């Protein structure tokens, strides 16, 4: 799985593609595949000792399970529903873009995703880093941010840093608000400070997560606190393939 990449990818899409991307809908799509299941994958505590399900990998990425949330077709259907309800092509496209980015990013771990479900339950997995979600959030954080997963997040953050102007109030009011009816609507309900907070929060959280989790994994936590950028790493993590 990917961590902060899901928070950051939509901003890059908005920066590169311009007004054909609605940032709030793209972010909603980016969060959608995990929004109802991540808590069940990790269990009820930080250490991963209070399990909810016996096989988190099967639940998260398999079938039977909710692995269909990581297929391409299911989000085409949801985006179609958004279009039918809103008649807004930009919203539907943006949601689909965010969801597909999430799905394709998650192909990089060792479990992968059922990209072609329901036509196939085969998992596309590129094995750049180990999937460690079944060990709980604490161990997953250590594994992810000391492996190539952390590098993947840093790449998105570094790319976004070149687009720092998109986070200015000036850019927000001149380029973002007039081109997306979501912001035009929100302007009637909320103050300028609230709107900018909503606009910036996911990027802020994503970048802060990368720094915070990396500091924690390397300097505060005392378990496997070293970088391991080998392909398919970290080496100490339990090998976990598709369900």
């Amino acid at each position: 799985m990917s961590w902060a990449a899901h928070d950051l990818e939509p901003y890059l899409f908005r920066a590169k593609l311009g007004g054909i991307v609605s940032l709030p809908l793209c972010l909603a799509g980016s969060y959608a595949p995990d929004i109802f299941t991540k808590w069940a994958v990790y269990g009820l505590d930080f250490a991963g000792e209070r399990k909810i399900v016996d096989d988190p990998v099967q639940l998260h990425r398999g079938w039977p399970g909710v692995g269909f949330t990581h297929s391409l077709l299911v989000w085409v259907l949801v985006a179609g529903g958004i279009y039918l309800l809103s008649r807004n092509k930009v919203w539907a496209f943006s949601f689909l873009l965010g969801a597909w980015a999430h799905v394709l990013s998650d192909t990089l771990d060792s479990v992968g995703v059922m990209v072609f479900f329901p036509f196939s339950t085969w998992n596309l997995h590129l094995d750049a880093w180990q999937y460690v979600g079944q060990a709980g959030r604490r161990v997953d954080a250590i594994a992810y941010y000391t492996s190539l997963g952390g590098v993947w997040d840093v790449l998105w953050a570094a790319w976004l840093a070149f687009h720092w102007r998109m986070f200015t109030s000036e850019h927000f009011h001149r380029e973002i608000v007039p081109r997306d009816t979501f912001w035009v609507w929100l302007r009637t309900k909320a103050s300028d400070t609230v709107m900018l907070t909503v606009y910036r929060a996911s990027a802020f959280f994503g970048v802060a997560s990368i720094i915070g989790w990396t500091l924690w994994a390397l300097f505060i936590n005392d378990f496997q606190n070293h970088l391991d950028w080998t392909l398919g790493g970290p080496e100490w993590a339990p090998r976990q393939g598709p369900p």
Partner: protein
Amino acid sequence: MPRPTTTRDRLAVAYWTAALLLYACLGAFFPPFLLLGFWESLPFVLIATWLAWRLLGRSARDPGPG
């Protein structure tokens, strides 16, 4: 072509870099700040946004209200 970077731009970048590092350190020493998702950071970003306008003022080119 992007407009030239002003002193206010540099101060704003420094301000938000400091805010990011502060939140990241909060999360490093108390991981619940980073556990769930961006909504956890909303109160912090709201205060940081409010404070930024008080400390830095608005850009002369900012067409926003206020």
